[in-house]
C-alpha cells in the first residue's frame, strides 16, 4: 500500500507518531505521544488546515511532515516514497521541496544577516542556481512577496523591518527554493490586525501561482476555513490524535466531533450582534488538558459533555461518516479497548528515534 500513489497526491502520512520522553519529578519519566497515529494526505496545489489548541502537537506534526523530526512510528510519503528511506540526495531534494514558515518572524530570521543573505543561503546550500543568477532569484522572491524595491530591501537587516515585512521575508525565504509544499505554522498570530490579511493574501496568491500545497497550522477554526476555502481540507487535532478530518466546507457546516462543535461555538466574530447571540458550548473543562495527563479511552472524554461509559474505556478510531472522518463513539465507531492493567499503553508504539 505504501508505494501506491493517488492521482495528484503529493504528501501523505500513515499512522504518524512522534513520542517524547518527558520528566515527571526527579526520577519518574513519562512517555508522551505528541503526534499519535495521524494519517492525512495532501494533494498538489491544495490546502490542508490543521487546527488544534496549544499542546495538541500541531507544530510537531508540521515539522515531522517536512522531515525536521523523525517519527517514532508510522511514515511520511513524498510522492509515494517514504522520506526516511530515501538516500541522501533524494532527501536533500525533498527538503528543498518542503519548506516551513515559522510563527514568530522576530526570532526566525538571523538578526546578523542581511535580507539578501537570508534568502541566498538556502540557494547556495541546495546549489539551486549559479552565482550569476543568484541575485535575480533573490530579487524576484522579494518582489513576489510584495517587497518593493527588492534591491533596497535586500540590503536591510531584520531589525530595520516591521513585523509584517519580516514575515514576508520569511515567506520569501521559503519560496526562493521553489518548493511544492509549504508548512506555515500560525504565520500571522504575531502580526497586527491590519497586516494580517495582507500577509495571508500574499501566501494565497503565491499558492495559486506556483501550485503550492499548503499545510496551514492554526488554533482558529475560522482562520482554517478562510485559508482552506472551498477546495481545501481541515484536520482537527486533539492531544496528538486526529479527531475530525474532511473537506473544509463540510467540517465547518456540519462539524461532527464534540470538540469541533465547541471550537465552532467559540469562533471569533467581529459582528457584535452575531457575537452576542452566539452561545458558547460548555465543556466540562474549558481549559486544555495537560498532554501528559490525557485520560485513557477517548482523550476528550474528560471534557466532553456527551461522554458515556464506553468513552472512558475505549479509544475511538477515525472512521468514515459521509464525506468526513471522525473519531467519536457518538457515531458508533468500533474502537480499541484499553486493557485495565495497562491503561496508558496501546498498540505497542516504538519509542524515541
Amino acid at each position, binding site marked *: 500500500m505504501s508505494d501506491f500513489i493517488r492521482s495528484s497526491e503529493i504528501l501523505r502520512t500513515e499512522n504518524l507518531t512522534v513520542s517524547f520522553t518527558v520528566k515527571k519529578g526527579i526520577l519518574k519519566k513519562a512517555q508522551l505521544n505528541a503526534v499519535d497515529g495521524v494519517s492525512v494526505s495532501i494533494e498538489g496545489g491544495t490546502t490542508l488546515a490543521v487546527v488544534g*489548541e*496549544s499542546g495538541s502537537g500541531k507544530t510537531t506534526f508540521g515539522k515531522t511532515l517536512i522531515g525536521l523530526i523523525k517519527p517514532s512510528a508510522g511514515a511520511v510519503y513524498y510522492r509515494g516514497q517514504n522520506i526516511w528511506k530515501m538516500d541522501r540526495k533524494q532527501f536533500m531534494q525533498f527538503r528543498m521541496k518542503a519548506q516551513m514558515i515559522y510563527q514568530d518572524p522576530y526570532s526566525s530570521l538571523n538578526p546578523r544577516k542581511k535580507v539578501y543573505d537570508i534568502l541566498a543561503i538556502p540557494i547556495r546550500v541546495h546549489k539551486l542556481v549559479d552565482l550569476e543568477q543568484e541575485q535575480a532569484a533573490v530579487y524576484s522572491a522579494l518582489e513576489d*512577496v*510584495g517587497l518593493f524595491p527588492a534591491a533596497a530591501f535586500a540590503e536591510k537587516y531584520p531589525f530595520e523591518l*516591521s*513585523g*509584517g*515585512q519580516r514575515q*514576508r521575508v520569511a515567506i520569501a525565504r521559503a519560496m526562493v527554493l521553489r518548493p511544492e509544499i509549504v508548512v506555515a505554522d500560525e504565520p500571522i498570530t504575531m502580526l*497586527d*490586525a*491590519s*497586516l*494580517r*490579511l*495582507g*500577509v*495571508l*493574501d*500574499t501566501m*494565497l*496568491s503565491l499558492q495559486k501561482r506556483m501550485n503550492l500545497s499548503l499545510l496551514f497550522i492554526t*488554533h*482558529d*477554526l*475560522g*482562520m482554517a*476555513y*478562510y485559508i482552506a476555502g472551498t477546495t481545501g481540507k481541515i484536520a482537527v487535532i486533539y492531544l496528538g490524535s486526529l479527531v475530525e478530518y474532511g473537506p473544509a466546507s463540510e467540517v*465547518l457546516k456540519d462539524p461532527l466531533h464534540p470538540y469541533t462543535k*465547541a*471550537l465552532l*461555538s*467559540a*469562533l*471569533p*466574530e*467581529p*459582528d*457584535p*450582534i*452575531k*457575537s*452576542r447571540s452566539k452561545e*458558547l458550548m460548555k*465543556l466540562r473543562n*474549558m*481549559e*486544555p488538558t*495537560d498532554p501528559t495527563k490525557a485520560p485513557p479511552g477517548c482523550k476528550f472524554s474528560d471534557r466532553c459533555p456527551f461522554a458515556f461509559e464506553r468513552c472512558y474505556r475505549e479509544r475511538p478510531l477515525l472512521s468514515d461518516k459521509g464525506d468526513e472522518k471522525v473519531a467519536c463513539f457518538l457515531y458508533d465507531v468500533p474502537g480499541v479497548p484499553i486493557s485495565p492493567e495497562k491503561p496508558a499503553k496501546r498498540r505497542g508504539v516504538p519509542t524515541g528515534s
Partner: protein
Amino acid sequence: MSVRDLYVSFVTEFGVVDAVKGVSFDLHRKEILGLIGESGSGKTTTALAVLSLLPPYARVKGQVRFFGNEPIDVLSLSESQLYSYRWAKVSIVFQGAMNALNPVLTIRDHFVETAKAHGISDPKKIKELSYELLKSVELEPARVLRSFPFELSGGMKQRVMIALALLLRPSVIILDEPTTALDTLTQRSILELIKNVRDQFETSMLLITHDLSVIADSADRVLVLYNGVPMEMAEVKSLYYRPLNPYTRMLIDSFPMIGKILKEKGKMLKPASLHGCPFAPNCPLATADCYGATMVMKEVEKDHFSSCIHADQIVQEENSDE
C-alpha cells in the same frame, strides 16, 4: 472616571516620541469601554496614565479624574496618595497573565502579599476574601491557593489575575489584552467571566485589545486608537455597522472571516504619517488637508465621534447607500 486631552510623550535618546496624542473619554459606571488599536497605538500607555504608573521620563499632559465619593485628580496625586488609589480604586490585569505571576510564590502568597501591601493583615480575613473571589472566577479555591503558577493553565492564571484585581473591590478594572495568547475556547470563557464579574461586582472596565472579536463580544462602547491618535468612538454596534473613520473600516475589513472575498491581493500598508491624520498615507479618502489636520474628535452623529476630517462625507455616502 474621565480622561481629558491626554498627551504622553517619552524622552528617549533618539528624541521625543509622542505615544498618546489627545485622548479623551468617559468611563461610566458598570460600563465596559473597549480600547482597540494595533501595537504602538498608545493603548497600554493610556492605561498606565490612568493609574499614574508611567515612568519618570514620560511627559504627561491632560487630566485624569476619578469620581468616587469625591473627585480625584489622579495626575496630581502624591506617591502616598497614589497608594490608596491604585488597586483600591482602579486595578489592572496586565498583559500576559502567564508571566505576571511570581513563579516562586504560591497563589496564596500572591493574595497575602497583595492584601498586606494594602493594609489587610488579618489572615482570616485574607483567607475569606481569597476563597470568595476565587469562587467567583470559577476556580476551586483550596486547590488553586496551594498551587504555584506553573501548575496552572494559561486560562486559570488569567482567572487568578482577575480575582487578585478584585481584591480591594475597585470600581474600575483595566484589562490589558486579557485573551491574547489563549486558545479560542479559553478566550471565550474568559470573556464570559469578564462580563459576569462586571455584573456581579458592578465594576467599570477598560478593555484593551487589538482583536475586534473581543470588542464585539464584550464592550459597550469602543474607542479606536491609531498611532496614539483617537480615530473614532461610538457604541459598539454603530461602530461596526456604521464606521465613520476609514481606519476603523479598514480594521473591520481586515478581519479574516468566513466567506469574505479577498479585495486587495497582498497589499502592504505604508507607515503611518506623523503629522495630521496617521492613516492618511493609506486612506482612500485622503486629501492634502489630511496631512495638516488637527485630529480632534467631533460628534458626527449622536454619541458617535470621529476625528476624520471627511467624516461628514462618509455620513453622506452612508446615507445615500441606504
